[in-house]
């Protein structure tokens, strides 16, 4: 059963990453502190706004915090699972990727999930706990139906983030240089901490349709809050599935390009 093999392999990726993290415990503790600092400062900033400001871009300050928490969650999940994206271009340059290609396991799977981030996995526990605590104390009205749609759209958002990661990997194959692109993407996605609708054009269009951060974070949150979404749920799901399929196609194409088909 291939699925079982993939699960076993992924388990070992995780265990090996864990061991590596423990070996380099010094710098990993510092990373942890950095992440906690960032999370705490973001929260301090949000609560400062909440305490001093009544409304934010048409939302109550409580609603605004939900946008941030959604961003935090989706970002964390992608960091945990897709950490491999960060080191991939290096692996192409060093030839490790050649070795992946000779193995009886999907090179895309390995490139994406080869290095689960242990720091973020550990960090997820307190951050989820804090998020739930804050969420339960917010003055917002959530219905069961909107919650279900929210979960579906968050799943759709994870599909989009997978697609973006695959896109970055493909660029890594073609150009062997992705550090810059990753950072720009990280910065763009951090703009999703606030509702995308507040940004000016053409940035707003870019964040909804080119790098669909808005579809990933803003629309699920709007649906959860019972606000009329910026774009329809249908369109959001089309963008999600569409970008995922497109990214797979692009991966195949760049793999062929790498191997010299048609060049």
């Amino acid at each position, binding site marked *: 059963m291939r699925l079982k*093999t993939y699960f076993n*392999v992924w388990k*070992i990726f995780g265990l*090996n990453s864990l061991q590596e993290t423990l070996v380099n415990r010094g710098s990993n503790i510092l990373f942890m502190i950095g992440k906690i600092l960032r999370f705490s400062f973001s929260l301090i900033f949000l609560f400062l706004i909440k305490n001093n400001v009544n409304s934010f871009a048409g939302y109550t300050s409580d609603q605004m915090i939900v946008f941030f928490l959604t961003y935090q969650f989706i970002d964390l999940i992608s960091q945990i699972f897709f950490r491999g994206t960060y080191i991939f271009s290096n692996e192409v340059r*060093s030839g490790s990727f050649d070795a992946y290609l*000779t193995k009886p396991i999907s090179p895309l799977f390995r490139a994406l999930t080869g290095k689960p981030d242990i720091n973020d996995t550990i960090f997820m526990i307190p951050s989820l706990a804090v998020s739930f605590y804050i969420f339960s104390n917010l003055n917002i009205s959530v219905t069961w139906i909107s919650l279900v749609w929210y979960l579906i759209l968050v799943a759709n958002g994870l599909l989009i983030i997978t697609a973006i990661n695959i896109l970055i990997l493909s660029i890594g194959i073609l150009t062997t240089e992705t550090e810059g692109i990753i950072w720009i993407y990280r910065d763009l996605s951090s703009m999703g901490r606030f509702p995308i609708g507040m940004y000016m054009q053409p940035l707003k269009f870019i964040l909804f349709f080119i790098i669909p951060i808005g579809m990933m974070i803003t629309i699920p949150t709007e649906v959860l809050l019972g606000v009329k979404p910026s774009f329809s749920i249908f369109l959001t799901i089309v963008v999600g599935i569409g970008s995922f399929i497109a990214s797979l196609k692009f991966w195949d194409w760049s793999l062929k390009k790498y*191997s*010299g088909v048609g*060049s």
Partner: protein
Amino acid sequence: MNSTKNNKKITIKVSNLKKYFKVYKKEPGLLGSIKSLWKRSYETVKAVDDVSFEITEGEIVGFIGQNGAGKTTTLKMLSGLLYPTEGETSVLGFNPWDRKTEFQKQFALVMGQKNQLWWDLPAIESFHLNKAIYEIPDKVFDETLSKLSKILDVEDILRIQVRKLSLGQRMKCEIIAALLHNPKVLFLDEPTIGLDVVMQKTLRDFIKTYNKEFGATIILTSHYMGDVKELCERVIMIDKGHKIYDGNLADIINKYARNKILSLTLENSVLRKDLEQFGKVKSFKNNQATLIVPRKEATKIASKILNQFKVNDLNIEEVPIEVVIREIFGDKKIH
């Protein structure tokens, strides 16, 4: 082809294989970079140009040629990493490019300068990863691992961080990682590069043993003629993408060597000038000398010398194979 045994199965078959790369030429300087935005002139590099060969089960074949001759490109096409521009390849009955799981489970590619082990972890962890990837059953894994680590004498270092191992130890672990799934076909690209003489010898012995015990088919490229001389009965010589020789290593001498070496010990000392009329004097010391003489006239010259001088000892030897090959490639370094 005298080295192909007809009663054996053909494992690797390559016919009219070509790989052309298109590279674009950039004019130097910033201006050139800007120009290249809209206008690029391309150049076609023929990395592999019309190469054909067959390799039967259990053979060890050496690829020799200069850097950039097309050896690694050929190996990469046989591994399914590169897509051939033209021609057919078949390994174990599969087209490597399809990268079928059943195929990938039966072969391994080892690149001497590349590292597939997790740097910060002991090698054993990388072995476990490969066990999962290749779906190796526990029992087979344990047996293979203990056997391989015994032969290579690495039992003690499997639990030490890879970064703390010496280059040789690392290479041994690298080889084990590649062989855990008992591949029937093995491509070794510069397996002994950077290793000291003792370690080179260990690895060569190991490759020989592996070939005998598992009946594995092996293609090897190497920097060191020593590897090829000791391991490969048959060699394929590649130059500028073309196959220029395919056959017994020993036969290269018959085919290409133009000279032989005459070494003499004389009764009385003679003048260097007196010997130079017979051939190129390579060394001359007291009453010992070595001469390089045209191959065909070696015996004739020897008898002339015997007539003219009082000779205590005279030997006619073949030129070392390294020298012959260096001559073929025009005095450049062999890789």
